[in-house]
């Protein structure tokens, strides 16, 4: 009498389980990037297939500095934060004073856990008095949602919904103007505004990760390709080139900018207790405002300052010679290990051998003389060990007037 229901495999369920068949997701710009990716040199950026380099890393770097470079930043994690309490909420979550960030402005900030250790750094876009976009390297939705308890605010991840492009380099302004974004010349550094595009709008900010004149553009994913095509068409005679991360990484190092999980270990990634970093230990101490309202990590950070418990410092180094000191150990008096280089290059712009390094205080803080780096240069299956003098120098390593010039120059 009893009839058992037959269990049929649900096609919907199987479809939902097939995510693993796509090892790395494509961004909304992928059709264009795939077509340009001659080197097929991909890496994994937050689950997306992103190019290290598309055709030539040297030329891609020089596109940033002499022409205009187009870099797909869609994989960057983006959160939409909106509501009457959005300002108060972000002021509690992030380090810098959000009440001073006016609508139409962007600032670089960071956020910490209860112990004052940096969870991530990123940029905060104030799109309106009550609407923000927070961009970062890592994902933070659980933290952001838990932080929203008793705030009248909604937090939504919009990484997939919003496509992003960085257009960087001396001709970037001229390209945007020629592409028809009227009024873009009025954007000063860290300003943002909305412009018409393809029946919708694109948010353009004068921001970037290169230390150069440049812009970032955010557009709904379905308008991504038309935006790409519009920029490429307008930029043809001004040398626009799509680039990969290797070139961008060089430019950002010249600009002295740090990258989470490259120059410091984000608190939620760190397994070893001594890898955690407070803002003061990675050069972000300037963000801390003890006089603003409460913010996450405030108690721990101020206590560490008062008790002089800060153990590390992040510095810029200028190293003799021209061999990049990537991941070299830093020594005091050629013998005592005091730190590690996290990023290094020969800078074609600065004409100097530059590096970012994390040192154990007091080295790099009060003791800055007699620092050395040991570079292992592989030469035909043999390391040539070079002990080179290193000098602590201010960041950024290069300062380009065109980055901030108003109106932006027409190259």
């Amino acid at each position, binding site marked *: 009498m009893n009839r058992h229901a037959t269990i049929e495999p649900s096609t919907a369920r199987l479809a939902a389980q097939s995510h693993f068949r796509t090892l790395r997701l494509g961004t909304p710009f992928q059709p264009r990037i795939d077509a340009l990716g001659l080197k097929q040199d991909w890496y994994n950026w937050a689950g997306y297939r992103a190019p290290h380099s598309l055709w030539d890393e040297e030329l891609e770097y020089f596109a940033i500095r002499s022409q205009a470079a187009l870099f797909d930043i869609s994989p960057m994690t983006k959160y939409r934060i909106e509501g009457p309490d959005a300002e108060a909420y972000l002021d*509690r979550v992030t380090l810098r004073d959000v009440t001073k960030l006016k609508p139409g402005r962007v600032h670089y900030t960071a956020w910490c856990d*209860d112990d004052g250790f940096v969870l991530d750094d990123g940029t905060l876009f104030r799109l309106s008095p009550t609407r923000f976009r927070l961009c970062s390297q890592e994902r933070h939705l659980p*933290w952001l949602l*838990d*932080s929203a308890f008793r705030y009248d605010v909604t937090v939504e991840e919009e990484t997939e919904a919003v496509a992003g492009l960085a257009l960087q380099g001396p001709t970037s302004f001229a390209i945007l103007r020629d592409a028809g974004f009227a009024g873009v010349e009025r954007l000063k550094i860290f300003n943002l505004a909305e412009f018409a595009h393809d029946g919708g709008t694109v948010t353009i900010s004068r921001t970037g990760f290169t230390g150069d004149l440049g812009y970032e553009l955010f557009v709904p994913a379905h308008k991504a390709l038309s935006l790409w095509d519009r920029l490429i068409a307008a930029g043809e005679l001004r040398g626009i080139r799509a680039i990969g991360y290797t070139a961008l990484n060089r430019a950002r190092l010249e600009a002295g900018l740090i990258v989470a999980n490259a120059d410091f270990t984000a608190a939620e990634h760190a397994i070893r207790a001594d890898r955690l970093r407070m803002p003061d230990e990675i050069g972000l101490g300037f963000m801390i405002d003890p006089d603003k309202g*409460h913010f996450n990590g405030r108690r721990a950070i101020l206590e560490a300052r008062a008790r002089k418990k800060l153990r590390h410092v992040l510095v810029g180094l200028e190293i003799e010679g021209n061999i990049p000191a990537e991941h070299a150990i830093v020594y005091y008096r050629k013998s005592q290990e005091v730190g590690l280089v996290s990023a290094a290059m020969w800078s074609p712009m600065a004409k100097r051998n530059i590096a970012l390094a994390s040192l154990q205080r007091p080295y790099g803080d009060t003791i800055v003389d007699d620092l050395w780096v040991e570079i292992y240069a592989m030469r035909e299956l043999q390391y040539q060990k070079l002990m080179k003098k290193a000098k602590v120098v201010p960041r950024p390593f290069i300062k380009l007037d065109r980055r901030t010039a108003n109106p932006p120059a027409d190259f």
Partner: protein
Amino acid sequence: MTSSELNWDAIVIGGGHNGLVAAGTLAKSGRKVLLLEAGNEVGGAARTEEFAPGFRVSAVAHLLNRLHPDVVKTLELERHGLTIERGDFVPSVALSKDGPLVLHGAYGEVLIGASPSEQAAWKQLRAQLLRYAGVLKPFLSRRPPDLGNMSLAEMTGLGRTALALKRLGKEDMRDFLRVLLMNVYDLLDEQLSDDRLKGLLAFDATLGSHLGPRSPTSLLGLYYRLAGEIGGLAGAQVQPKGGMGAVVAAIRAAAEKAGVSIRHASPVARVIVEKGRAVGVVTQNGETLRAKTVISAINPATTILDLVGPREVDTGFVRKVRNVRMKGDAAKLHLALDRPPQFSGVDAAGHKGRLVIAPSPDHVERAFNPSKYGAFSPEPVMEITLPSLVDPSLVPSGACVLSAVVQYAPYALKEGWTAGKPLLLKAIMAQLEVYAPGIGATVRHAELLTPADIEARYRMPGGHWHHGELQADQMLMSRPVSGWSDYDTPLEGLFLAGAGSHPGGGVSGAPGLNAARRIIAMRA
């Protein structure tokens, strides 16, 4: 908004017994202390209240078994009306259809009604339980150890525990460690055979927590019970004359003598925070009161989430506070009876004691099972006292009051407590009728406080008298939350002194005393 001219050294929020103990101890150290009580009377869940015309009863806590001797000594409670004599100890009676079993003296120094072999087994087990509880006792009364930053005094305290462990001897020490996190059910099975005795112990181990006897770590509850003492004897219990309110009255008198100012009907709206420091409170009437130190002796979650607000503390801390489990699982029954009931087979001394309906460990486990799914058992287990037999002044002449703590009554009852309450009362009355035939006909008035009622009336979130489930993961360094177990909070100048802090609930005064000592020990 008015602002008080006075500046207090310390403001204590909440006049429960822990708030009174903290306030009194701080006042004795020379501080000017103000205590703010939300209700019209101090005492919290340790009040004696009239629930029917002429009938008074201890509100939630009805047996005194763990008032900390240091509290009695520090506040000189004996000079303020608290007297406990050996003759006041009352027995525990395990009710059963097979006739009762009686534990006389301090937790069954003498066992009556069991076979000779069971008596011998009990003697051994009792000694062992008290020995092991004794090892834990310093942990379960003093400040919890701060593993990161241990002071010399704390090290010495830990050292003493290590010594106590060592003194157990090798075999005993191994056994102590073996059983520490065991469930009480299996341990009882190892050593005893009388279901009545096992049922009573299983009930005591799980009373006030959301655990069944077979739940891992349930034995800890029994240790917690036995780490308490009264009149210098571990495991003893008394029914205070005048109800629990009389104990509170003594603490209150001591606090006032020490100079504490007490204000009733003064619920606090919020704690004033300036640059990461608590500097006072604003009452719901809008009065601003400033103080060097603010001590909250109310629920820790209420303190942080409602009075301070999540905006003044860090996300991780708020996460921890919101995750403290505090859903009560016990109800309180008060019956106004025409005359004293007669529990079958129980003598006069037994009626003055604690009568427990938990006829077997399986019965307790079965009563627990439905509570996991938001229901109560048709045969609830309970602990009954008849306070008017000890103090006839609580009731009209010839009448009687019955007070019972009933498990398991889940806070989040599936059908809701409006619908569920009459059904639970019916189930309880059916159980009572089994052991005290005819009792139902003598009920003049019945008051059943569900966890929802306890929450509303005594401002205990979840209706949980421990202000946070008392289980291994929420004890010691993890109480109320890990990283903040030393009565302090991330806000400078704000301290916690209620049952939600270590060691936990019950009328002990230990959290209040420890918090006050912690503040006194701080460098000015």
